[in-house]
């Protein structure tokens, strides 16, 4: 029996979250990865607390961007390899919506969890405490944008055996605005200014992405299935 | 004892919160370290014993059946 769209999407989400929660390591892992990469910076740049504090918004945001890209590059990989994607494409429910469910679940597990624990990393770099809430909210919004961008790139490259890396590089230029707005918000907050306008810009990016990305993702996945 | 009053023990000249936080957190981790495998082992041995009882009961039951048949 063909279920309602709502039920179907709920099942999709459950399936995705269940598989992820089966291995808590998959959620904790990226966070520890982040922590490790953050420690690499003092090792590379030197231990001076003042320097680290001044650079911390930039460092945290660049690392968040990189780890988000690395992780979301594999977004549809397992679905493609185990045949789930074929089934989704043949389903009468819109592929755009089922793909978006995956992107959201992915973001909840990776971006949101990163945003939640980010104060710990900020503390390691001596970031001023008043900037922490802004760091968290900017990361939450920003990683959503990054997941959407990563998903578009992933949908196009999932079937490619050749030059897969090259195409996913296309996504880095797209992420530049996110990086600029995100760092600006945190830096303003650390200096005691009002970061609202930057956060609003990030929110606008996220909202626009949520509207437009589904179409791009669905088209990309259908093209990948043709290959 | 070095301290004169119990409140001095808690305060420790302003360092009390730090010292006590460190000690209580350590106590908590040590508790987890000992208690979690301890209770898990209890649970597992209990499950094994239950299994053995069940098997024994079943064996004696079928044994009686055989006896009654004979």
């Amino acid at each position, binding site marked *: 029996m063909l279920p309602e769209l709502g039920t179907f999407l709920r*099942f999709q989400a459950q399936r995705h979250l269940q598989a992820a929660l089966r291995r808590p390591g998959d959620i904790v892992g990226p966070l520890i990865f982040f922590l490790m990469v953050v420690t690499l910076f003092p090792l590379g740049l030197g231990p001076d607390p003042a320097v680290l504090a001044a650079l911390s918004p930039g460092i945290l945001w660049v690392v968040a961007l990189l780890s988000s890209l690395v992780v979301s590059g594999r977004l549809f990989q397992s679905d493609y390899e185990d045949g789930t994607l074929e089934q989704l494409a*043949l389903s009468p429910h819109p592929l755009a919506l089922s793909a978006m469910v995956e992107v959201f679940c992915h973001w909840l597990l990776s971006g949101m969890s990163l945003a939640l624990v980010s104060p710990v990393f900020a503390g390691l770099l001596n970031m001023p405490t008043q900037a922490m809430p802004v760091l968290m909210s900017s990361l939450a919004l920003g990683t959503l944008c990054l997941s959407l961008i990563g998903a578009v790139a992933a949908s196009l490259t999932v079937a490619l055996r050749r030059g897969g890396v090259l195409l996913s590089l296309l996504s880095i230029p797209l992420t530049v605005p996110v990086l600029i707005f995100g760092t600006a918000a945190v830096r303003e907050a650390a200096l005691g200014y009002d970061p609202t306008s930057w956060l609003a810009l990030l929110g606008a990016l996220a909202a626009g992405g949520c509207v437009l990305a589904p179409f791009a993702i669905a088209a990309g996945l259908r093209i990948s299935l043709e290959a | 004892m070095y301290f004169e009053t119990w409140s001095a023990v808690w305060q420790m000249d302003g360092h009390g919160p730090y010292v006590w936080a460190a000690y209580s957190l350590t106590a908590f981790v040590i508790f987890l370290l000992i208690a979690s495998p301890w209770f898990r082992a209890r649970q597992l041995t209990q499950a094994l014993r239950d299994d053995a009882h069940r098997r024994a009961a079943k064996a004696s039951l079928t044994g009686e059946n055989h006896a009654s048949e004979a």
Partner: protein
Amino acid sequence: MPADLLKLESVDLDRGVRRLLSGVSFVVREGDCWQMLGSNGSGKTSLMRAIAGLTRLGLQGDRVCTESVIYQGHLPGLKSLLSCRENLRWHGSGRVTDDFQKIDVALARVGLQGYEETEICQLSAGQQRRVGLARLWLSEAQLWLLDEPFTAIDVDGTAMLEAQIQRHCEAGGAVVFTSHQPTRMAALKMLDLNQYAA
């Protein structure tokens, strides 16, 4: 006269720059059971995917296909970290169920009783294929498109699957499958792709 579930009319099929098949015409009606034959590389898989609607770029000609279709290709569409039961809650092409009893019955039918809670990655090749095939017991689609469903399945499993296919056709469904082995099914129609080779 039974209704047409699938109709191809003088269809040409390309793969990349190469033409694989030309002038394929066939009609699948309710109750039909078709075995697609053809030597390795003749284009069975490509045609199957085109029929299902997965590839549209290489297909020229008229294709009419019912919406009520289930496709099982080389890939089983199973999440290797979820258990058999969890996987079958979502049984392909947008169909879902929460009825664990039905799922367990389907698993028992394909000989996987006792494996309900086992993760897919801990199963043997044939057992994994069986979990995928259990979807046929759960599905309510009319047209089944099965690409080499007997791969890695043992003798008992083959007999069981053949019986299920026949049951489905007798109940008014239709099946198109590929297989290199001869089967023991009655009233089988053959579509030999070698004759359409371009």
